[in-house]
């Protein structure tokens, strides 16, 4: 190990070359933990936990969503074309199609996001912070599979520069960066991230008529491999979409009641995630495993997750009682089958920087998100899903919630001084 250390150290650029040195430092601390020791005053031993390990635990918890999400991109594509409609048939094709869509998204997100991160770290002269590790892992999972890469880069740049660096970097941001990137696409390019057409990849639309895209070099290249292996191939593409196919997500269908949802998707299908949607949001068991990892390791707050669940359930019940329209009549527990509730609960609402920081505050914050999300989902005809806006809204309110919690602590203490 020490010889490798010596070899790596030879590459160290001079300190005057700020950008190169920051870059080197970033990779060096990735490879080796620094040899810094504690100071003479203060604690002499430090906990093994640091920000890198915290962040990487979240990334690990997301891995099942990545695997399933990638596969589901391919699955939805073939279902639309009426080929290999069983979930387990032609798995290699679905996985490769998913990878062909997913890898560019992942790479572009990281090149743009990390590039900006490196640039600001060099400019400010501090070490590269780990915040983007998680943001970069989350963004590909909350985008539609066919998002144009230039829109993706714009949204990542917008979110990282205005959402984070403008406020001072990791730990200073007010709203969730990943959601800010999504909100940017949502409002700047609504056609790319809403409606019924964007959730299934590899389709082209000519007016109302949809057909499969003509495959490009990546598909052809993998076809070579598949031919050699003697398994099913992609072919040339361009086939017609099956009759009666609609790319609508359950939430879009829910506007006209639960019956129209179940006409397309069984609740088991919605639970396991073989439905159109953002890449990582569909498979509930995969998300719940991630949530359990985060709770078991103490990385994410179980208080936020639980109270958000309660908030959503509460609001769902209230709407059931009100029963003003067909969407309000959807039994409250079915709301958990549709859309991205669990993904938002496990990975978005629990971001410690943007959530409330006191334990009491976390209960209020989570409950508020749960209630608001269902309100937006049910009452606002323009937005089928509510979690992104609910979380961004509560992010802004979180400091105020904390303020009141902290004030009550101060009042309690002041009372004690008077009583004494």
């Amino acid at each position, binding site marked *: 190990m020490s010889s490798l250390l010596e070899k790596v150290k030879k590459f160290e650029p001079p300190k005057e070359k700020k950008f190169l040195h920051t870059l080197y430092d970033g990779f060096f601390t990735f490879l080796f933990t*620094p040899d810094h020791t504690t100071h003479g005053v*203060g604690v002499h*031993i430090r906990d093994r936990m640091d920000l890198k390990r915290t962040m990487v635990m979240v990334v690990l918890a997301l891995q099942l969503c990545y695997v399933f999400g990638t596969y589901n991109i391919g699955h939805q594509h073939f279902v639309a074309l009426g080929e290999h409609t069983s979930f387990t048939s032609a798995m290699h094709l679905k996985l490769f199609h998913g990878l062909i869509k997913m890898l560019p998204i992942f790479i572009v997100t990281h090149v743009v996001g990390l590039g900006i991160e490196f640039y600001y770290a060099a400019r400010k002269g501090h070490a590269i912070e780990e915040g983007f590790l998680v943001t970069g892992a989350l963004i590909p999972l909350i985008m539609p599979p066919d998002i144009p890469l230039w829109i993706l880069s714009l949204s990542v740049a917008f979110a990282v520069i205005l959402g984070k660096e403008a406020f001072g970097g990791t730990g200073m941001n007010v709203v969730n960066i990943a959601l800010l990137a999504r909100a940017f696409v949502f409002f700047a390019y609504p056609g790319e991230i809403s409606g019924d057409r964007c959730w299934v990849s590899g389709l082209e639309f000519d007016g109302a008529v949809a057909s499969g895209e003509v495959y490009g070099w990546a598909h052809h290249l993998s076809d070579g491999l598949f031919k050699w292996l003697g398994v099913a191939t992609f072919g040339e593409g361009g086939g017609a979409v099956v009759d009666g196919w609609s790319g609508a997500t359950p939430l879009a269908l829910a506007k006209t009641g639960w019956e129209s949802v179940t006409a397309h998707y069984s*609740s088991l299908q919605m639970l396991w995630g073989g439905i159109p949607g953002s890449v990582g949001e569909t498979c509930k068991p995969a998300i719940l495993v991630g949530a359990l990892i985060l709770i078991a390791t103490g990385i994410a707050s179980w208080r936020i997750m639980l109270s958000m669940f309660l908030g959503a359930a509460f609001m769902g019940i209230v709407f059931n009682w009100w029963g003003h329209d067909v969407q309000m009549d959807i039994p409250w527990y079915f709301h958990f089958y549709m859309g991205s509730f669990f993904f938002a609960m496990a990975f978005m609402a629990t971001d410690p920087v943007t959530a409330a920081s006191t334990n009491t505050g976390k209960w209020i914050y989570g409950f508020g998100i749960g209630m608001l999300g269902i309100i937006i989902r049910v009452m606002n005809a323009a937005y089928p899903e509510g979690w992104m806006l609910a979380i961004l809204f509560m992010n802004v309110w979180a400091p105020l919630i904390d303020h009141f919690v902290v004030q009550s602590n101060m009042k309690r203490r002041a009372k004690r*001084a008077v009583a004494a």
Partner: protein
Amino acid sequence: MHLSMRKGFNRLHLVFSFLLFLQLAQAQSQTGGGNSSFTTLLLGIVVLIAFFIIYQVSDNLVRIEAKKSGLDSEDDALAMMPGKNGFFQKKKPAYVKGQYVALKQGHNILLEGEAKGPVQAANVKTFAVQPQNFRGMSPIPKVEVEVGNTVKAGDHLFFDKKNPDVKYVSPVSGEVIAVNRGERRSIASIVVLADNQQQYRSLNAPNLDTCSREELVSFLLDAGGWALLRQRPFDVIANHHEVPENIFVSTFDTAPLAPNLDLVMEGRGAAFQRGLDVLGKLTKGRVWLGLNANGDAAPSPIFTEAAGVGKCWFSGKHPAGNVGVQIHHIAPITTKSTVWTVNVQDVATIGALFTEGKYNAEKVVALTGAELKVAKYVRTFTGANIGELLDGNLASDNARIISGDVLSGIKTSTDNYLNFYDDQVTVVEEGNFHEMFGWLLPDLATPSVSKALPGTRFPDTVFKANTNMHGEPRAFVVTGQYEEVLPMDIYPQHLMKAILTNDYEKMEGLGIYELIEEDVALCEFACTSKQPLQKILRDGLDMVNESA
């Protein structure tokens, strides 16, 4: 008002749960069939949670009522489901009588190199008093001796020109061999080479039963006992013009590798009791002992049978043994009050002024840490030379010597002396090396409070710690982790942010007066962002102290 609000809250939950049951019934009739298992699971969770909330709220209501009517609310008998507490909490030990506080938050860091009894003799010849150990002391105090003078134990060595009544005395008799200077000609230490046979300055202690408080105070000031009394807030030498609300003594130490005070105090019961009597005359309130309720057996009768004092039992992990935590649960410091604290061995030193008529600075010191050949207890005097204490006992060169414990001690060296209030020396490995993927690999060998590391799954694991930072400093990101290791009604992260932004009102409001460094030391250890919390806290304390 408060109670009625709670009742309203309770009613709300009842309605809420009723709705849930209605929904459950509806769901049963609506769905049926195959894929409702997930729904049933969701319903089950909600019903369980609702039940738990109702139960918890009602249970609390019962406790509030019980407290109002003056019943002991800690007792299980009043709970809705007697025995629940025994199920969820550690059982209250049978030997505990009277006031008892069970602390949930905290963490014990178990390290290699725990000192083993019995107490052995130490071969230490040089001793020093270091003026900078006394917080608030001016850099250059007035030194009353010169190199070459001979002194007796208890003879004055120096005093602070700002506060000339408090005399600082020699712990041993012998020859003054050095007055060492530190930065900017400040006095670093006054070193005495000890005689083989200790000689003591003879003291005329007043009769405790008849003397006035003023007589007692002036005797203690002159005899050197005053320097042993420290005042909260700020952890400075007690102000002899003030009368403290209460005086607190913690009779157990939960810090990593901390000495077992039962063992340390063996055979010094009489002096300890007399010391408590002295303290009793100094306060307008009470002298409080914090007693250890963690062990299988009761602590030493020296503590449990002490007379004329208030006693409060504490169970829980570190920092349950910190006097600051105990004060918070017995009678919290407010913006208007001051309290004093004394270490256990220092109480005996004060008592010995009366029982033996001499300044007996005898101290049992625990030599601990994985880098020692033998971890043991030794009997010596305050301010012993570290090199002589550890002579031939160091197992490695690449080690850090700490006067005190690993969490709030001060780095020192073999040329240096044990700090005045410390009864422990810890030697740990210097972590001045790189580790490949040290941030990624699961690590069983390094202590942590985080559940993300496998080591915390085995709470009895004994670790071999080193001084590596295990990461780089970052801005505050993770929330709630300080609260989990600080058993006080305080928001440490908000307090730290208030200090960093010079917000005086918030600092006071959030309880900066109730804390000193050792109380937030565990938070600093646990901090994912590697923030220097103890330093930030001291900056804040200095700020509010100066503005006051």
